[in-house]
């Protein structure tokens, strides 16, 4: 895992405490029973605290897997943007 993946994994485990670190990379809304819409909102807030990157609520519906969050974060960080995306 690279640094972003490690930090993102920590966010996932804060919201889904039963999830092992190794499982987080493959986590999707379908594979994680506890992942409902409220969990997505919680996840977004935790990620915001960790990365200081605000995810616009309009994109919430697209954030259905660890990979989607990772893509969003790498894009935001590479673009040097720390405000709304």
């Amino acid at each position, binding site marked *: 895992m690279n640094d972003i993946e490690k930090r993102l994994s*920590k*966010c996932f485990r*804060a*919201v889904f*405490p039963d999830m092992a670190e190794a499982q987080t990379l493959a986590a999707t809304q379908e594979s994680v029973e506890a992942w409902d819409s*409220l969990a997505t*909102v*919680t996840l977004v*807030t*935790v990620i*915001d*605290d*960790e990365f200081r990157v605000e995810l*616009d*609520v*309009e994109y*919430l519906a697209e954030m259905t897997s660890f990979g989607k969050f990772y893509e969003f974060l790498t894009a935001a960080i590479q673009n040097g943007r720390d405000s709304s995306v």
Partner: protein
Amino acid sequence: MTLAEALNIVRNAPNEAGSFDVMLACGFTPLHLRTFLCAHLQQRLPQRLVRVGSGLYGDLPGTLERVSGDPVQALAIALEWSDLDPRLGYRSTGSWSEPAVRDALNVAAAALRQLASAIGRVPSHVRIAVSLPTLPLPPLFRTPGWQASGNELLLEHELSGFALELAGRRGLAVANRRCLEEESPPPRYHPKSDLSLGLPHTPAHADALAFTLARLLAPAAPKKGIVTDLDDTVWDGIVGEVGPDGVSWDLAGHHHLHALYQKLLAALSARGILVGVASKNDAAVVEKVFQRPDLVLPPDRVFPFEVHWDAKSRSVARILGAWNIAAEDVIFVDDSPMELAEVAEAHPGVRCVRFPKGDYQAGLAMLRELRDLCANEEVSEEDSLRLGSLRQGARFQRLVESGPAPESFLEQADATVTVDWHPAFGDSRALELVNKTNQFNLNGLRFAEADWQLRVAQPDTVLAVLSYEDKFGQLGRIMVIQGRRNGPLLEVDTWVMSCRAFARRIEYQCLRMLFARSRVSEIRFAFRPTPRNGPIQEFFTEILGQKPEGAFPMTNVQFEAKCPPLYHRVKECGSEA
């Protein structure tokens, strides 16, 4: 606290602990506020498993109605403007026209009356915290934002009346909006999150609001005493250098901060907070200052005076002994960082506060801090008796040591023990004593008000509150014992005695009466040693012949074999136990 930290605290709560169930009543999506509230309460109640439930979105009155049927110990009500009328929030498309605004105000007033009525139906054992609307109103009034409109003032007036009515209820606390404004500055509102998800608060504001509600639902135990320095603290100047008339605390001399400090000490003392002096000075010189008629702190509110050249830590130790309370219950105020450090090292539990001489902003913050640390919602009769009974205790001790033999002294004390076998439901003194007492405490257990009320309401419960007075004065209600009948046994779960009542054999009288009243031959004590309950351990060791390690039985024969002569007159009141 970040949300991840809050989630971590909630996740690591002790699962095997007794639960503390809270209902969060709000009209918006409670998601983050609920998590933060749970985490802050968990931090304040580490021995409990805090569980926070919530009602249906947009149905605050319905949630309140359901509390009556739910076995919760506490209720947190987080009001926002849209709970009073949707037009006062941003999610409604209702009109902001003048007639619509006037109508919204009428609806809001009616909603407040309905809420007050619903809150009035919540069972009295449920602790309630209420926060009034914390978010800005939409621009629905016709005046510019910097001008208060009549309609807005009317709305605030209705809200104040509602809060005033609630604040009069025992066990209900209203959050101070001004304090919350300082602790949670704008922006508090998250428009996109509110409009998209019904989550109106920024995470930072949800955290601050939850912290406020948690403090109201599980307040910290108030400090019991303040030990204060004198020079450059109670007054400006070094009295040993400028003399008794040279020290000052007046406005003209620009030393009014010291007068304010004296005023606060006097007010706290009147509410039962003990005030003692630890000063490196010549005692005769200090006595002359305390004879000055312009002193704001009356000398009779101070006990004891430790004025000499000995180390401050030793003065503090002697004051703790005279007060018979633990270091954790005491604040030490001094202007000298060195003296504060010396006391902190010797007494790590003492809260050390620096008097910021000459810095008025910091000075006012210190006054607020002292008030907050000592704040108590109710001032009981015992609070007003405390100082007098401590002086009495010191006199009692001196007479025991220097007068006639202790036995004849106790015999001549003209003591009366009054036992109330059935204290009034809702009498807060018994629970206050249970939750404040450390030394003569059977097991150190603390209770939320709801837990305690449920416990004492059980039909097999025996509860007694004992008061004491002798020729030296009253001590007030100083002992609580609570147990359960279990066949031929009596199981005592709670037993505490104020340290002010030590050395009077009241604990022996209590057990003698309990055996007689309960008609049992054996009492089982749910004893548990704690780091601070040495006095009750010694009492049991005296009777049993060995130190108990945990719960144990005691027969009446065992007790009477070791019970010393008792000279108290006994009065009993209350219905049959």
